């Protein structure tokens, strides 16, 4: 029994379960129910939500591993793509021969988006890269969301020295340009890995969430229900977790969606700079980086760049639109 394999599968299922839990938990609150009614009428929002769902599905296909194949574990996507042949070299989308001005070789199969320098199918690689983007986004969110939410509520509710300390903490972090901080941390951590990238991204990621939650908590803390809870003798911990937290949770959800799009873009950027995804990991950033040289070839190899950019663009755009739709649904006056 390969326990590492099952641990990985378990974390994928647990991650999806966690999101579902938040949604089910939120669904009991009236504000969330009203937001859902409004969201249902927002056709663009629903469409972008479906696109995100599609990306999650493709990512899950690559993430969930089955104990078959020569290495002992193969992802479902690899099993499905197992019959796609590997060609000798570059080939254009749907071409029948390899891309060469002198004596092109016939291909073993047709490729929707062509093949790369190693003859691998670009479409399959693009789908696989979905996993990297989702892992970076998901892992980083898992780290930064609890930290940012908790610190934001603490700063906004207790004020005084707690607020000063937390504000000081994030002002210092914020003073260093984000990209420089990311580069420094990743450079120092040495050998590239997705977990290290998620760690680095969450160092800076929690700040904007924390500020947002801090402001909203300050507003909420003035409301009568908090004073009533205090008058009834509820503990501070209880006020924070069962009164303030549910009332700022919708902001966490919105920020999570919008932040995810930034994380996906950051992954591509860091991979280009050479401190991101490990070499050999299918990632849109690595594909775009590799495509730089391909554009100056004769004839031009444009399909790797186009498909990686297209896939990245689709995910980031739908995340942004969905995040905006959520914001409008929760706060129709200001959206």
């Amino acid at each position: 029994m390969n326990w590492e394999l099952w641990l990985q599968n378990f974390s994928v299922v647990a991650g999806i379960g966690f999101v579902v839990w938040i949604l089910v938990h939120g669904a009991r609150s009236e504000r969330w129910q009203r937001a859902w009614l409004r969201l249902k009428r927002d056709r663009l929002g629903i469409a972008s939500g479906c696109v995100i769902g599609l990306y999650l599905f493709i990512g899950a296909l690559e993430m969930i591993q089955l104990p078959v194949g020569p290495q002992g574990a193969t992802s479902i996507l690899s099993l499905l793509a197992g019959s796609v042949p590997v060609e000798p070299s570059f080939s254009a989308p749907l071409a029948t021969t390899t891309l060469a001005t002198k004596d092109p070789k016939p291909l073993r199969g047709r490729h929707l988006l062509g093949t790369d320098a190693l003859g691998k199918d670009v479409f399959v690689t693009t789908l696989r890269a979905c996993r990297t983007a989702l892992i970076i986004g998901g892992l980083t969110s898992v780290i930064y969301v609890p930290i940012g939410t908790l610190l934001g509520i603490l700063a906004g509710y207790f004020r005084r020295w707690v607020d000063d300390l937390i504000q000081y903490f994030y002002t210092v972090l914020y003073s260093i340009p984000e990209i420089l901080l990311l580069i420094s941390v990743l450079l120092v951590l040495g050998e590239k890995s997705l977990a290290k990238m998620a760690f680095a991204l969450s160092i800076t990621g929690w700040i904007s969430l924390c500020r947002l939650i801090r402001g909203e908590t300050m507003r909420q803390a003035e409301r009568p229900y908090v004073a009533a809870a205090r008058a009834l003798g509820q503990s501070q911990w209880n006020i924070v977790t069962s009164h303030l937290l549910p009332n700022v949770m919708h902001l966490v959800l919105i920020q999570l969606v919008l932040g995810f799009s930034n994380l996906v873009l950051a992954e591509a950027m860091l991979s280009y700079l050479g401190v991101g995804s490990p070499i050999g990991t299918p990632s849109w950033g690595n594909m775009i980086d590799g495509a730089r040289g391909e554009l100056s070839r004769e004839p031009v190899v444009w399909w790797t760049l186009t498909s990686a950019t297209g896939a990245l663009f689709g995910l980031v755009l739908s995340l942004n639109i969905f995040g905006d739709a959520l914001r409008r649904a929760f706060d129709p006056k200001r959206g």
Partner: protein
Amino acid sequence: MLSYLLRRILYAPLIIFGVMLLTFVIFFVLQKPETMARSVLGKRATPKTAYDWLHKRGYDKPLILNLGQQRQAPDGHPYDSSGVFDTIFFNQMRSLATFDLGVSDVTGRELKGVFKEGALPSILLTLPAYLIGFCAATGIALFLVFVRNSTVDTGGVFLCVALMSIPAMVYIIFGQAVVALGLNYFPAFGFDLHGFGIIRFLMLPVSLIIVMNLGHDVRLYRAVFLEEIAQDYVRTAQAKGVSGNRLLFVHVLKNGMIALITMVVANLPLLILGSLLVESFFGIPGLGNLLVSAIQTWDFAVVRGVTFLTAILYIIGLTLTDICYALVDPRIRLS
């Protein structure tokens, strides 16, 4: 008023101290100096050369306090450190406090000179981009607010989100491959500091930076103006019979500008960093380019220096903005 100014000014050194501490933690605690020596020296690293490298830079001293602890030197050589405070931590703090940034780990050049050289091309690149970009974004945002809640507005916002969803590298790769190499309108690479030739080299990078940031800025500024238009004074002016155009382009623009300028001015000092990606793609010898090559050669001193320098400039910018803001807006002063 005076106490507010005093508080702001005294806060700055505190933040600078935090940044110094943070850079120390990243570069000397997250990785051991020995690891740093090995990555910089690469294959040339024998225990002897690594030790010499560390010794020359004073990185072989104890980390924080010299309490007579003996670290194992590779050749049994004693670590030379005189006094309790002659350690990496205190020496680093001292040199940062006196703005002695040290020498490059790879080339051995004095960093102050290197940074001075790099700052000018970076400013030449980013300042025009920043100014033109700001005016363009403000203009477009005002236009979208002018036609608010129409199809043009919705379409414009959608376009902004789409522009935001494309990674920066793709803009640059596209600009370089199509506009410079394909259509041959501009040189694709290089720089010339003398005479008017510089304009030819800067035109394309500057326009790329503007387009890259346009989506994000327009959306942000539009939100600011929309918030401003919902204010009471706007309704009062309307009731008094101020025309729609005058209301938007005089009253709302002026008041919205205060909010915009605080967002923008704090970032002005960061312009010396230029744009990492644009500089390295177009071969502009600015600080951003320097940083990208430092990452590729593991030049920790350069990364450390740039990080510290930009953080300091940002803090100075932020403090100055706060002070100016307090001068123009009495509400801040009184609270």
